[in-house]
């Protein structure tokens, strides 16, 4: 191993350069070698490849555990802070604004209002799809105003989706539910 060099002593005896500092003129060569996708595909530059082994089992704990149990039973559960009175979803065991523990559970409805939405033509890894996915934030009926969750809309003409649209959850069959957010298949408009 290289012998460690003597301790770097701070040299604060800086040169006084009150000349005009270097400006970046048009000839300045910035560093950085750009490659094309082809350079990589055809092996014009050397690369190493890695697929990570990164698996987890996240403990659901009290709040999310009960939320998922509720979904399995076909219910959307929320919590209520009796200090500020907010009814919240997804549930948590603390009120982030009052900073106090809460465990007043409330059953919410499985209907709601579209707060915002998108018509998405690409998958998570940028593959194009023909029929758009319609992610939305849905404010859940029974919770305080503005309390929404992210989910998907379906059984609707994409052109007709609008903010303020009333929707209802479409559940998986009871025996197929597993205690997951996907126990709700999607939300559809209420006629």
């Amino acid at each position, binding site marked *: 191993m290289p012998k460690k060099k003597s301790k770097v002593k701070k040299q604060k005896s800086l040169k006084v350069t009150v000349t005009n500092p270097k400006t970046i003129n048009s000839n300045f060569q910035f560093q950085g070698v750009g490659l094309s996708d082809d350079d990589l595909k055809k092996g014009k530059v050397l690369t190493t490849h890695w697929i990570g082994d*990164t698996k987890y089992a996240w403990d659901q704990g009290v709040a999310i555990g009960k939320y998922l149990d509720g979904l399995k039973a076909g219910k959307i559960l929320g919590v209520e802070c009796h200090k500020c009175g907010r009814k919240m979803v997804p549930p948590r065991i603390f009120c982030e604004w009052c900073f106090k523990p809460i465990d007043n559970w409330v059953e919410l409805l499985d209907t709601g209002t579209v707060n915002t939405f998108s018509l998405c033509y690409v998958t998570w890894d940028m593959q194009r799809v023909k029929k758009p996915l319609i992610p939305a934030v849905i404010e859940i009926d029974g919770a305080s105003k503005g309390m929404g969750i992210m989910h998907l809309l379906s059984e609707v003409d994409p052109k007709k989706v609008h903010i303020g649209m009333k929707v209802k959850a479409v559940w998986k069959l009871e025996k197929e539910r597993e205690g997951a957010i996907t126990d709700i298949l999607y939300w559809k408009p209420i006629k």
Partner: protein
Amino acid sequence: MALKERLTKKSEAKAWYGDMPVESLYTVGIAGEKFFRAIKDDGIFLGTKCKKCNIVYVPPKIYCERCFEKLEEYIEVADCGSLESFTCVHIGLDGKRLENPIFVGLIRLDGSSTCIIHKLGETTVEELCIGMRVCAVLKPKKEREGSINDILYFKPTKE
């Protein structure tokens, strides 16, 4: 207590399973390109030298990590050197015990200030000792692909 509500039944304690899908393709960089091309094409080891700090980096860096000089001069070092340390690894990347433990060495090639990490082969645990001479065994030229695995392992030599 911090939490008002607690789980009290073992059956209530559940987990959600998932992963972080990570697949990466890393370019080996400017210095890496020189280093691996030299092994791949010529079977030689290159380093960069910082004249100011008198350090030869193998594998090379385009900068001296100590004084931050730009290093552009590549010099060849030997493919043999001394074993600075070694270990016998019994656990695999999956956390399971390996059937065949792997010998790994810290090798300082002659002419280099730094060490290369690689496997040790053609040797036994009795034979290995710190300070012994080892040499690189490369893959046959046509099988080399420009990676650290173009070196198969280092083996002890009697010089």
